C-alpha cells in the first residue's frame, strides 16, 4: 500500500501540515474542533508527487527547464516566464491522472455528493501549499461533476507553474519543475455574502477588537480587492459593534448557471449601499472568531461564507483560517512600562488635556 494521499477533512488536523498543506490541515483542524466548515476532502502533497512521477509530467518538465534560461530579476525576461508558464500549464493539463488515483477521487466525490444530498454537488478546488503563499496558486469555484473535479485538481497542480510561481521559485533558487502542494476539494457554500475576519484591529494592533470585512457573493470579491467591502469593528469582550462602515458594493462574484462560470455581476442600486450582513450574523461571527483564535492560540485571519439557503446560525461557514501575518508576528512590547498604579496616577495628574478649538 503506497502512502496515503487523500483524506477527509474530518480525519485530519494540524499535525498533517506538511503532508496536506496548511490550508487543508487548518480546515481539518477546524472541522475536528467542531467549527462549521463545508464538508470536503484533501489531496496531500503525496498526490502531486505521484501525479508528477507516475506520469511523464516530471520528465517532460525537466527537459523543458533544462533548455530554459531567464533571469527572474530582470524585468525584460518576464515575457519568457509568461511563455514558459503557458507551455508548461498546457503540458500538465493535458496529462491524465493515474487511473487508480482518478478512481479514488471519483469515489470520494461520490461520497461527498451523498453527504450533501446533491448529485454533482458543487465544490471549490483550492490550492494548499505547505507554507502560506496567499494568492500565488489558483482556486476554482463552482466545479460540478466528477470529471470536472478531476480536471480542476490537475489545474490547481498546474497552477504551480503559473508565471508568478515560477518566478518566485527562480528567485529563491528552488527547482523550477517541481513544487508539491495539496488541494482542498471543498463543498461550495451558496454564498449570499462572504468575507474576512481578523482577530485584531489591523490599524493599531488592538487585540480587543475583531475587524470584519464582507461583500456580497463569494469571498473572492473581498479578497481580490475588486469591491470595497462593508467594514466592521467589533469588541471581543462586550460584543458591541463599535464601527460600521457600509460601502457602495458595486458588484458581486457569482456563479452564472448559463455559462457555468463564475462571473462579476453588477448589483442593483438598492442593494449596493445596504449592509450585506445582519447584526446577529456579525456578532455570531465575532464569537466564532474568538473561539478559532483561542483554539489556535494566536491572532487569526479567517475567511467565511454565509449561505443564502440555510437558517441562522447554521448559515455561517468557515472556509479558511490561518495565523494573522502582521500583528501576530510582532513581539508584543509593553506600552505602559512596568508602573505602579500610583506612578500612572502621577503621570495623569501632571499631564494636562489639550483642547483643540478651531
Amino acid at each position, binding site marked *: 500500500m503506497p502512502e496515503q494521499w487523500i483524506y477527509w477533512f474530518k480525519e485530519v488536523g494540524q499535525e498533517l501540515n506538511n503532508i496536506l498543506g496548511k490550508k487543508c490541515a487548518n480546515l481539518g483542524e477546524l472541522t475536528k474542533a467542531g467549527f462549521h466548515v463545508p464538508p470536503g476532502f484533501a489531496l496531500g502533497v503525496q498526490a502531486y508527487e505521484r501525479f508528477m512521477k507516475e506520469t511523464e509530467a516530471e520528465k517532460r518538465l525537466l527537459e523543458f527547464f533544462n533548455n530554459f534560461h531567464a533571469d527572474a530579476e530582470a524585468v525584460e525576461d518576464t515575457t519568457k516566464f509568461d511563455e514558459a508558464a503557458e507551455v508548461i500549464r498546457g503540458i500538465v493539463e493535458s496529462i491524465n491522472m493515474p487511473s487508480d488515483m482518478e478512481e479514488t477521487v471519483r469515489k470520494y466525490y461520490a461520497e461527498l455528493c451523498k453527504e450533501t444530498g446533491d448529485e454533482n454537488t458543487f465544490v471549490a478546488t483550492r490550492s494548499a501549499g505547505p507554507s502560506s503563499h496567499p494568492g500565488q496558486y489558483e482556486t476554482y469555484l463552482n466545479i460540478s461533476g466528477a470529471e470536472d473535479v478531476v480536471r480542476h485538481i490537475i489545474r490547481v497542480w498546474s497552477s504551480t507553474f503559473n508565471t508568478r510561481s515560477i518566478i518566485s521559485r527562480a528567485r529563491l533558487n528552488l527547482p523550477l519543475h517541481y513544487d508539491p502542494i495539496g488541494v482542498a476539494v471543498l463543498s461550495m457554500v451558496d454564498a449570499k455574502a462572504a468575507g474576512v475576519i481578523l482577530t485584531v*484591529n489591523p490599524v*493599531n494592533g*488592538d*487585540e*480587543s*477588537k475583531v475587524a470584519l470585512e464582507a461583500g456580497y457573493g463569494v469571498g473572492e470579491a473581498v479578497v481580490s480587492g475588486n469591491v470595497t467591502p462593508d467594514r466592521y*469593528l467589533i*469588541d*471581543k*469582550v*462586550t460584543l*458591541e*459593534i*463599535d464601527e460600521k462602515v457600509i460601502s457602495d458594493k458595486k458588484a458581486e462574484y457569482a456563479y452564472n448557471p448559463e455559462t457555468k462560470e463564475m462571473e462579476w455581476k453588477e448589483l442593483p442600486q438598492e442593494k449596493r449601499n445596504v449592509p450585506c450582513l445582519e447584526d446577529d450574523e456579525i456578532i455570531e461571527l465575532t464569537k466564532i472568531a474568538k473561539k478559532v483564535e483561542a483554539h489556535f492560540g494566536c491572532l487569526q485571519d479567517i475567511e467565511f461564507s454565509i449561505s443564502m439557503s440555510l437558517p441562522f446560525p447554521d448559515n455561517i461557514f468557515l472556509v479558511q483560517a490561518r495565523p494573522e501575518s502582521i500583528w501576530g508576528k510582532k513581539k*508584543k*512590547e*509593553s*506600552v*505602559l*512600562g*512596568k*508602573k*505602579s*498604579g*500610583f506612578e*500612572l*496616577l*502621577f*503621570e*495623569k*495628574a*501632571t*499631564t*494636562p*488635556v*489639550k*483642547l*483643540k*478649538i*478651531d
Partner: protein
Amino acid sequence: MAEKKQFPFAEEVALPPELEGWEEMYPPQRLFSEDRAEWEKRHFWYQDKIHASDPMYPLDDIFQEAWQIALSQFTTRVFCIPPAQGVAQRMLGCYMYICAVEPPPPEVIGKKAELFGKRVPYTFENYLKQFEVWLERFQKLGRDMENLNIPEKLPEFVPDDEVVPMPKGITPGAEVMENFNTIISMIFKSWQYHFQYLNLAYLAYLMFVDTAGKLFPGIKESTIGKMVAGAEVSMFRPEEELCRLSRLAAAKNSVKDILKGSGSAEEKMNALNKTEDGKAWLGEIEKIKDPWFFVSCGSGWYHHEGSWITKMDVPFSYIESYIQRLENGDKIERNFDEISEERERIVKEYRALIKSEDDLKSFDDAYKVVRSIYRYAEDHLFWVEHWLHTIWFAKIRQFGKLLVNQNVLKKTDDIFLFNRFEIPMILEDMVTAWALGEGAPPRKMWQEKAEKRAKILEAAEKWNPVPALGIPPEEISEPFTLMLWGVTTDKVDEWLKGTGVVDESVTELKGFASSAGKAEGPARVLKVLGDVVKLQPGEIMVTPSTNPSWAPVFTKIKGAVTDIGGLTSHAAIVSREYGLPSVTGTGVATTIIKTGDIIRLDGSTGVVTIVKRA
C-alpha cells in the same frame, strides 16, 4: 464655525431689563468685577448646568460658595495635584458660571508634585478604613444639625426654668442668632468633607481611562465605566428600601389595595393608619426613613425640589408602580450579583488580552487604585447632597417659619430669597424687635425685597443664558472640569455653535456614549422630578441630569438622555446597571427635544436622532 473662536465677555452679555437689581442678591465677591477684570478675562467661564442649571436662590447659593472653597483647596492645598488649580465661580444674571483656574507657576508645580507623591499613595492605600471614619464623622455632623433647636415662635416671656434657680444667661432670641451662625458653619464643614476623597476618585478614574486606552486604543468609555462601577454603594440603598417596602405591601392585600387606590400619599397614610397591617407597614417606613428617605426629589441643590420625606407622593408613586410590576410577575430589584459578575467578566477578558508581563502588572495596579476609591464618587453623593441637604432645608424652614411667625417675612420659603450674610441681619432685626418689648417694628424692607427678588428669579428662569464666556483654553488639567462637567474640545465646539438661539431644525445630537444599546420611542422631557408622574412606560427620558432619587424611574423607561454629565454621572451609572442605553452630556437635549418627539438613541456611539417631531 471657524470664525467664532470665543464667547462674549461677561460685560458684553445683554441681560433682560426685568433682571434689574439681580446683583443685590449675591455677595459682591461672587460677581464679575472691574477690579478683577484682567484675571477674569484670562479665564474661560461656562455655565454650570450640573449644580446650577436654574437661576440661583440666594440662600441655595451657599452650597456653591462652599464647594468653590472645598473642591479647590483639595486640589491646590491638600492633595496638591501638580498642574491643576481650583474652580472659580461667578454669578451673572442669576446663573452661575465657573472656570478652571489657569495653572500655577512652574516652581509651585514642583512643590506640589513632591507633596502629592507623599500624600496621595497613602490615602489610596488606606481609603477603605478612612471611609468608615469619614462616615461616622459625617453622620455626627448631620445629627448635630438635626438637633439644633429653633423655636416656632419667640416666647412672650422666657420660661421659669431658664430664670430660676439661676438665669440661663442667654435667651431663645440670642440662641436663634447663634444657631444660624452654627448651621452656616456646619454646612460649610459638610462641604469640606464632601471633597475629602472626591478629587482623588476622579483623578483615579481619569488615570484608568488613559491606562486602558493605551492598552486597547479602541476601548470605549462606556466599557470602562462598566469596569469601575460599583453596585454596593449607599446611593442605591433608598431604592432597595422601596423594593423591600413594595414587596411587604404586595404581600398584604389590605395594604396593597390602599396603596394602589386613588388619593394623595397623605390620604393613603391616614387610611393605612386605621388598619393593623397598614400601621405595621407604616412602621417599616418609620424605621428606615432617616436616612433612606432623606433623598432629594431633584439634585439636592435647590430648596424647592423637596425630598421624599417632604413629598411622600414621590416614593408612594414608585411603590405603586413596583407593586404593579410585582403583580405582573416582574422582578423589581436590580440584580447586583449579575452586575458584579458582568464587571468581573469584562475585566478578566480584557486582562487576558494583555500580552506583556509589565503591562499586566501596570493594568492590575491601575485597576486596584481606581477600584479602591472610586465608590466614593457615589457614596458621598447620598450622604451630602441628599441626606444632609434634606436636614438643612428642614432646619432652614424652621428659621423661615419663625420669621413669618414674628411678622418679619410673609412666607416660610421667602428665607431662601436672602443670602447667608443677609439672614443674620434679618434675624437680628427680628430679635431686636422682640427684645425691645411690645410695639417695636422690624424693617418692612425684608418683605419688599423678597417680593422683588421672586420676580427677578422668575424673569431669570425665562432667560436663556449664554453657555460660556471668554476665550477657551488650550489645555485643561483640572479633574472635575474634565470629568464631571465633561469639558472637551467637542463640548466647547458645540457651545460655540449654539451661542445663538437653539436651532429647531437640528435632528441629531451628540453626547457621551455612556451606556451601550439602542432604543427608539417617544421622548419625555422631565425638567423636575415632580413631572415624573407624567412618565409613561416605554418612553425615553430626556432630562437636564439625574440623581439618586430618580433611580426608580429607570425601571419605567427605555433609555435616558441628559444635557449634563459624563460617563460617571448618575444617569450613566444607573443606565448601565439597568442595561438601558443612555447618552449623557448632550448639552441641549432638553431644549431641542420636545415631549412626544420620536427619538432614537444609540448608547454605543453617543448619538441621539430625532426621528419624528411630535
